[in-house]
């Protein structure tokens, strides 16, 4: 949804550069998750990157620090070339079961596809299984005192559609070389030629809603 980040105490916070930001909101409850998709195809296999300014906060139901109430936020790409479908996915794990984690993770393995009939299969690959720490990926992201104060952060994630490998991740002043990391990888599937989806997600680690905001998402590549 489109939010102007209005808080009960401070009024409208606004986006980074204007009034509005893209908002993802989970339901209340530990493990509750929400996902948003932009479904595209790529014109040409090339290097590409996603850039954004983001912020996340729990719903301000308590005037407490609440810094461990959001579990994680992350980005999944869903890409298919002529041979393979890959689901590169990374997340910033803020907290797990109430314990601060403050680290970037990736996933190489998930669960099996499930047949949902009419030649269609599905996979829920957003679960807690098989997340692995990205080497050097510990990072403290500014969390400003209470849920109603919001600070924006820069993020980019690069991927090479020619090689189906990550390139780099950057969050503020942390830059990580991801070129050695694997992804979820399957044989190419019917009907998904040149598939290219971008999928941000956020989940809660408390009984509160978790909110993820973007002020602009820029996708660029050597298309």
């Amino acid at each position: 949804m489109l939010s102007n980040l209005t808080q009960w105490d401070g009024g409208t916070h606004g986006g980074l550069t204007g009034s509005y930001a893209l908002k993802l909101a989970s339901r209340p409850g530990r493990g509750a998750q929400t996902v948003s998709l932009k479904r595209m195809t790529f014109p040409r296999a090339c290097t590409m990157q996603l850039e954004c300014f983001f912020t996340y906060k729990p719903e301000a139901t308590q005037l407490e620090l609440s810094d461990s109430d959001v579990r994680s936020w992350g980005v999944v790409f869903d890409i298919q070339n002529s041979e393979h479908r890959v689901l590169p996915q990374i997340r910033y794990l803020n907290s797990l079961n109430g314990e601060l984690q403050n680290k970037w993770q990736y996933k190489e393995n998930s669960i099996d596809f499930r047949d949902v009939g009419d030649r269609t299969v599905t996979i829920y690959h957003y679960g807690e299984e098989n997340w692995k720490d990205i080497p050097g990926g510990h990072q403290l992201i500014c969390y400003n005192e209470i849920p109603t104060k919001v600070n924006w952060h820069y993020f980019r994630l690069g991927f090479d559609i020619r090689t189906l490998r990550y390139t780099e991740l950057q969050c503020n002043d942390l830059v990580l070389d991801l070129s050695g990391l694997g992804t979820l990888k399957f044989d190419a599937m019917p009907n998904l030629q040149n598939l290219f989806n971008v999928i941000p997600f956020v989940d809660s680690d408390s009984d509160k809603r978790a909110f993820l905001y973007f002020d602009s998402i820029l996708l660029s590549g050597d298309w």
Partner: protein
Amino acid sequence: MLAESYTAVIARGEDWVDGSTTEPYEASWAREAIIVVRTLEVGTLKAGAKAHVQVSLDGMRWIDEGTSLEIRDQVDGLSMARLSHFGHYLRLRAEMPDAMTGFMLATLSLKA
């Protein structure tokens, strides 16, 4: 400029009981809205079930907006409400007396 518009599915196949609410939806950018409630499965619905529109400035504290929709007791039964001048967050609150339940779809169509 074309007016921005957006339709959000605020309940997608949910069992409503008395007091059920949809998730808070931010609509500060919109000038008008149409809410449609559709009965997917009748469950124990009878006449008298309603969905009340509520507004909130913070997504946490809710005020009845004054508009109510009938919840139909037949499959694919529809009801609609037109809203304007509604401020920030919108949601529906179900009033379903006599322990009624129904399996519901609700959509919120917004326009700037």
